[in-house]
């Protein structure tokens, strides 16, 4: 065999476009994956808000969820596992005009990234922070995540997950200075969209847990449609008008999202999973509002530098 020298090969391959290029930049998740619904909802939201896509940055960790930014026509940043919140915080601190969307998986956010998530809630940076919670590690093929129900078979827990799942809403509500906590689901596109809209409108860290179907690795999660009524409850008042088709799927529960105690009590007393806005407090200042100051002019800075150096001069 006459072997092509490697450098030649690179040149030829990198220079010439692929002979056949049939593949679009279509989103690539499994058929039926809940992530599609989130993508559509967010695209609709961006269209509705008519934002300039170059003033939106979507950042993610690593996971199936981590692929999200590629499919959104905004600035995108596919970071590293568990660390989407710190990177997003930097982006938000850099430029207040940017709209920042942070996408995480349940392993990403509640396992390796839990510290950043909870402290992020406390800093209350202005982010739309979404967790695609499929109760499983998707991309790495079915290991237990903190929200995997106890007893579930996964590749790392072949005898069933050892521990009871965490309740992210309870943790979020019990972190100090949090300002927005909501829950929605991928199989309720109307509710999903409304919830994203309220998060988008809020100034501060809008934490939205999105219950996400993963037909590949956690098809059993969240049960079948007929179980909805038993397992879920809509919080009332919902934002805007509830999509009527979904309205009938579960009962409604009166809840005032400005009442933190009520929100915590609800989690404690209510056996069904709440869908909707648990808590929102627009009065909590965003971290940017707390920290960012007007940028002095160059002349002002030079003067301040002189003053500073004076203090060290002999």
């Amino acid at each position, binding site marked *: 065999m006459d072997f092509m020298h*490697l450098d030649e*090969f*690179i040149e030829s*391959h*990198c220079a010439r476009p692929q002979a056949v290029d049939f593949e679009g*930049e279509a989103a690539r998740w499994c058929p039926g994956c809940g992530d599609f619904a989130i993508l559509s909802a967010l695209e609709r939201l961006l269209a509705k808000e008519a934002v*300039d*896509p*170059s*003033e*939106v*940055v979507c*950042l993610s960790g*690593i996971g199936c969820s981590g692929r999200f*930014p*590629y499919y959104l*026509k*905004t*600035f*995108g*940043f*596919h*970071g*590293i596992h568990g*660390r989407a*919140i*710190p*990177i*997003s*915080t*930097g*982006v*938000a*601190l*850099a*430029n207040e*005009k*940017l709209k920042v969307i942070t996408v995480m998986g349940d392993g990403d956010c509640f396992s390796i990234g839990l*510290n*950043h998530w909870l*402290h992020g809630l406390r800093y209350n940076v202005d982010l739309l922070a979404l967790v695609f919670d499929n109760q499983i590690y998707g991309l790495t093929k079915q290991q237990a995540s903190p929200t995997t129900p106890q007893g579930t078979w996964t590749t790392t827990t072949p005898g069933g997950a050892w521990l009871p799942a965490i309740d992210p809403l309870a943790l979020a509500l019990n972190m100090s200075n949090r300002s927005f906590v909501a829950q929605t689901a991928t199989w309720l596109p109307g509710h999903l969209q409304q919830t994203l809209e309220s998060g988008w409108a809020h100034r501060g860290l809008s934490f939205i847990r999105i219950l996400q179907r993963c037909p590949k690795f956690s098809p059993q999660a969240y049960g079948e449609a007929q179980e909805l009524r038993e397992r879920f409850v809509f919080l009332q008042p919902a934002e805007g008008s509830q999509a009527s088709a979904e309205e009938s799927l579960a009962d409604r529960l009166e809840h005032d999202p400005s009442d933190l105690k009520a929100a915590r009590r609800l989690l404690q007393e209510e056996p069904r999973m709440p869908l909707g806005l648990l808590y929102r407090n627009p009065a909590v200042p965003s971290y940017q509002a707390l*920290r*960012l*100051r*007007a*940028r*002095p002019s*160059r002349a002002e*800075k*030079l003067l*301040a*530098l*002189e003053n*500073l*150096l004076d203090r*060290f*001069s*002999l």
Partner: protein
Amino acid sequence: MSKSPPIREHILEILSDAGEGAQKAGGIFAKASAKMGNYLWTVEIIPAEIQPPAHTTRGSSGIRIRFGADPVTNAGDQANLIFAFNEMSLLARLEADSLAPEVVLLIDDFWAQQEETQANYRQVVARVVAGGGRVIPVPLTQLLQDADAEQGKNTLALGVLSYLYHRDLSLVEEALRQSFAHKETAVIDANCALLHRGYDWAGGAVDFRVKIPAKPSKHPMLAMNGNQALGIGAIAAGFELCSMYPITPASSASVFLAKEFEAFGGVVHQAEDEIAAIGVALGSNYAGKPALTITSGPGLALKTEFMGLAVMTETPLVLVDVQRGGPSTGLPTKIEQSDLLAALYSTPGDAPKVVLAPTSIEDCFEVMITARRLAEDLRTLVVVLSDANLATGVQTFKRPPADRPDYFRPLEIEPVGTEAVPYQWDPETGIAPRLIPGHHRIPAMTSSLNHDPKGLVSYDGASNQRSHQMRRLKLNRLRESLKTPPLLGASQGDLLVVGWGSTLGAIEEAAAQAQKEGLAVSACHLRFLNPLPPGLKGLFGGFRQVVTVELNYGEPKEPGQLARLLRAETLVDVQSFAKVWGRPLMPCELLAEMRRLIQAQEA
């Protein structure tokens, strides 16, 4: 002490228990001396514990002041004069071999009279005398009691030292009043009285004085420590965000910024951990606000994954590592230069980055300006390796100009065509346009996965090879732009010593001394550790022996960290003088090593 050549400098140490104010007194002494026109280097002697027990070696707290008629570039050799408030503080320094044999020791003789301490006192003082030192007992506690004061040993000592060193007492008093400015007038006056009492006591009781010539500089001078210089450098460089997590000895730089940064529109963000700290800095840079993160050893370790992300995504990022003793928690307050290989190679995968080390306190200012420029021009990670020696040492240096084009450099918004993509590497330079959200109208994708010019994931082998090549090319180009470092001394000789970072002053001093002694020794010093400057092999070729000088661990067959890099780079048999003594390099020990090496060559 009856040397014939006129004394042009002295090294003084004031030692006490923590809380007795030796550092404060030393600071005042130093300031007054600098005002008189002395150059100086001071360094705090920090107790290892938060609350060390009083009257123990562990509690030894104080200050070393090296001051002289000529520029001072390092903390120097063993001390010429010690003022010890008790014998245990002294013992610590004796054990650390910090006293010159012919040291002059002033010591509070109160402890000679106390039953519990008598024996120790005698033993320790006897060791000084046996070494060749001279002891001047000072009734420090007694003087304090005579003055009916509870506190103020330090001010008394300051008075004594002012007399001994012919200090201008009005300048000392001025500096004292400044330093006590926030106190009540009564306190200030009482201290001034103690100052004079000490001065007068010495005038009556001590027959020993030293004159250090001083001439006020024509150029305005500054005195500050390296972490302050880093902080001011970061400000002048135009950084607007410092994202950090506390750690010794790095924190004092961010703490400094926490106080000063807001006046410049800057923010210090204390993150929940070091991982978040670098993540926030990276995010900020990505979105166009120049940000840095500052840390030390254990914090550096935690930043490893993000360092790789910065290189992979080609996000400008400056990481300052103020090196301390390692590995692990190691010696948190002591100097080492042992993070060099970690700075270069910690990141899994091939992740070329720039590594710089400031060589003086003044350079701590300059290096920040260089670092930001390189990070943004090359779109990559720049690691700055400072260390505990620079962090805590105070040096006098020329005040930089009030304005320079590289101060507060604005964010560069590259003009790009509408078809621009974020990784359209220039095949000549490896540099791609930097598309910044909110500034460019072309939404672009940035990915930690291997990506093609568009920023989209590519699993193709050729694409992976190409992106590696481009990231390396940037560094290769930078290398070509660097100058071969100059030699201090002849370009041929028996021995070339090669240093990096904070040891510059001590190495130059030792080399100059060796040259005076007629040894064929030259020195060269590296500020760029990655890429290494070109021409080293040629430079080394002129010498019989090449030895690095490093404050990390080396052995004959396992030389220090820089030596490893230089061996691989030049294929010259570079050896190292590499020790982890937890203290700055002393010119005299290097000089001794130079002599030894050349003697060994001859043998």
